[in-house]
């Protein structure tokens, strides 16, 4: 019984520790976000982007949406540029086009 309680506590502890970690994240002024439409076709393409783009200089966050074919990158403007990030995606063998979500809303 004691080990069971201990095991459950450990899991909860990890949950709380990491949640406070995530909440504590501050928005940096230098950080900017860019979204690309990328010619991904399957789960493997998504994985490849997730395995490589985080290690590009200046990248601070990454979201890959396979059904919507979008790759959203948060980056530090003093360390990299959208062109460099686009080139990094192209280097992996995919075609990338800058995406402007606001315009899309007007269309609908």
């Amino acid at each position, binding site marked *: 019984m004691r080990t069971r309680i201990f095991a459950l506590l450990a899991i909860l502890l990890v949950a709380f520790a990491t949640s406070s970690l995530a909440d504590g994240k501050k928005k940096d002024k230098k950080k900017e976000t860019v979204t690309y439409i990328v010619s991904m*076709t399957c789960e493997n393409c998504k994985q490849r982007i997730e395995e490589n783009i985080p290690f590009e200089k200046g990248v601070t966050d990454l979201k890959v949406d396979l059904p919507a074919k*979008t790759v959203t990158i948060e980056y530090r403007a003093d360390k990299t540029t959208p062109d460099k990030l686009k080139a990094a995606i192209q280097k992996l063998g995919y075609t990338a086009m800058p995406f402007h979500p606001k*315009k899309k809303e007007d269309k609908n």
Partner: protein
Amino acid sequence: MMKRIVNALAVSLLAVVGLQAADNHEKVKGYVLDKEGSPLPGAYVYWTDKSSRCVTDTEGYFEIVRSLKADSLCFDYVGFQSRRMKVDKPGEVQVVVLESSAALQEVVVTSRTIGTLKNRKSVFGTESISAGELTRAACCNLSESFETNPSVDVAYSDAVTGAKQIQLLGLAGTYVQMLTENFPNQRGAAALYGLDYIPGPWMQSIQVSKGAASVKNGFESVTGQINVEYKKPKIADPLFVNLFASDAGRYEGNAVGAVELNERLSTALFLNYYNEEQSHDKNGDSFLDMPKMQSFSVMNRWHYQTPRFVSQSGVKVLTDKRTSGQTMHTLPDGYAYEPYTIGLRVNRVELFSKNGFILNPDRNESVAVIVSGSYHDQASNYATDAYNVYESNVYGSLLYESEFGRQHKLCAGMNFNWDKYAQRGNIVARYMPGVHNVTENTTGAYVEYTWTPMEPLTVLAGLRADYSSLYDWFVTPRLHVKYDIAEWFHLRASVGKGYRSTFVLPDNSYLLAGSRTWHVADELTQESAWNYGVNASFYIPLGDEELTLSADWYYTDFQNQIVVDLDSDAHAVSFYNLQGRSTSSVFQVEASYPLFRGFTLLAAYRWMDVKCDYNGRRLRKPLQSRYKALATASYETPLKKWQFDLTAQFNGGGRMPMPDVANPLWAKDFGAYTVLNAQITRRFRHWSIYAGGENLTDFKQKNPVVGADNPYGPDFDATMVWGPTMGRKFYIGVRFNIPKV
């Protein structure tokens, strides 16, 4: 806005009612780009049946009404090569890249989807374990790959030999059909140690289906099917290396190399070596806690593909050597007998070839031929007793598949299976004289029909008839139904029959690790059982994320079973045909929720009621927990550079086989216990490092070897195992890969 809401309501209402007309209102959306990623405005987009067409806007964006008949879109743009593309996932955004006319390179026409891991749509209740999931724990081999899976248990069969058994639905692993690359493998003698024969880093994914499975692969699955997919030469990284070491003295190395020789031909080479040569006897019972092991395996596979033909072939060779029991070092001073050692030596060769011909791509009409074979040479000794088995298997399958419109799909085929067991050693002469060689041929044919009368309903019915050289004719019916009551609520039900031929010695050789006398009935018949299952899955949007809930219940009812009776006599094991009833009823609930980005919690609880008539007494299955619960917490930092995993397994208590009444050597029951595992992974672009601990609470079954002080006496029994025999263990490993360019 109002219109949009009304539209959305109408669409969802139609979906609920299940009118196919709902399809008509759906639009396929996407972008047309050039190779550099610039939009191509004014490009023509139309269906192959010309039912509708449109032109892209300034951003290359298009929306086109779905066609009823055609599933391929055509794209035209001046100065660029026209392109035809099959729309496999109409719900997703399509991104089409056109090549300029000047470039004469061939364009890949269809976008292939390999390794789709979402099984929501499947009519079978299949759970998938991806390569990513396998990196969450040590996962040196298949037997360790189910630690984070709530449905499958892996338990040591005994305290000495290292044989492990999978359990699905509370029943022995022999009732699960094991497949590699979708053909039966690891049967008979290979089943006991075979889980160790598939190294973790070789695997692409594992699929676990509970309950009646498809009839395509034969009649054998009673409780379910487990399929292992190895890494594919065409998509694998050119080089992958994994090194692993644990404080228990296990050293392991894996390498997978893949080469694409040309557009059609690719090959991959897989290597594995492990060594666990340290001798541990932490509980001081003079028996090693784990066998000393050394194993080497190599596999080479080839992939050949043209637009109409796909062929995959491979060969795998394995050698495995284990020594366990007592050694000169573990024996206390002054003992006058030879150490009781158990030795096992296995050599195994597997061959396979799978060939598919696409006859008509428009209706997915294809013919496939699968041929596989294996030779398994296993020599074992239990002190002075010897048991050797030489097992040969040949399997062939012919399969035809075609779609008739959107609603009907037919699959038909034939299978052939040949098993031969040649058994040697004094054990055979003692317990099963005259059964040195056993051969069985089974030939069968099947049809499987899938009917999708409307989008949310799928009915799959399969029927097969087989002729066995030992058991004559038998029929295997199976039926699956899936109904999506709503987008967030899916229901599945299945019923089916399964059969199995039992070969007593190869299936149960681990029971030789003890002094129990074997009694094998003369006329053992074929095992057969019905399996019934229902499953409800809910996908509930909660906050920004989705809460996944599922509940399932499976009931297995044996018509005949070869009962393994450890209860009637504490100094014997009997094998006989079931007289009375044998059933398994398993209820499982599971919930998983991404609490916040990167953090996923999973909790599962499984309640098992497995009962069998042992010599007229209905008892629970011995050495099995009454419940199992699992809780896992996993956190990945936003860029996935760090990953933290924690897994807790809660195992309920259970019943021990009946101890001797006059001189009880073990208790009647065993208590509940908890096992806790944790791992941290740090990823870099081309490599990652991971470190973790298993069984962190250091829980061990006390005295797993009964009568250890006199292994040559009548009370010796190493098979009364219900919990971990090894304590806390720490490990560290690295993975290194050269990615594809």
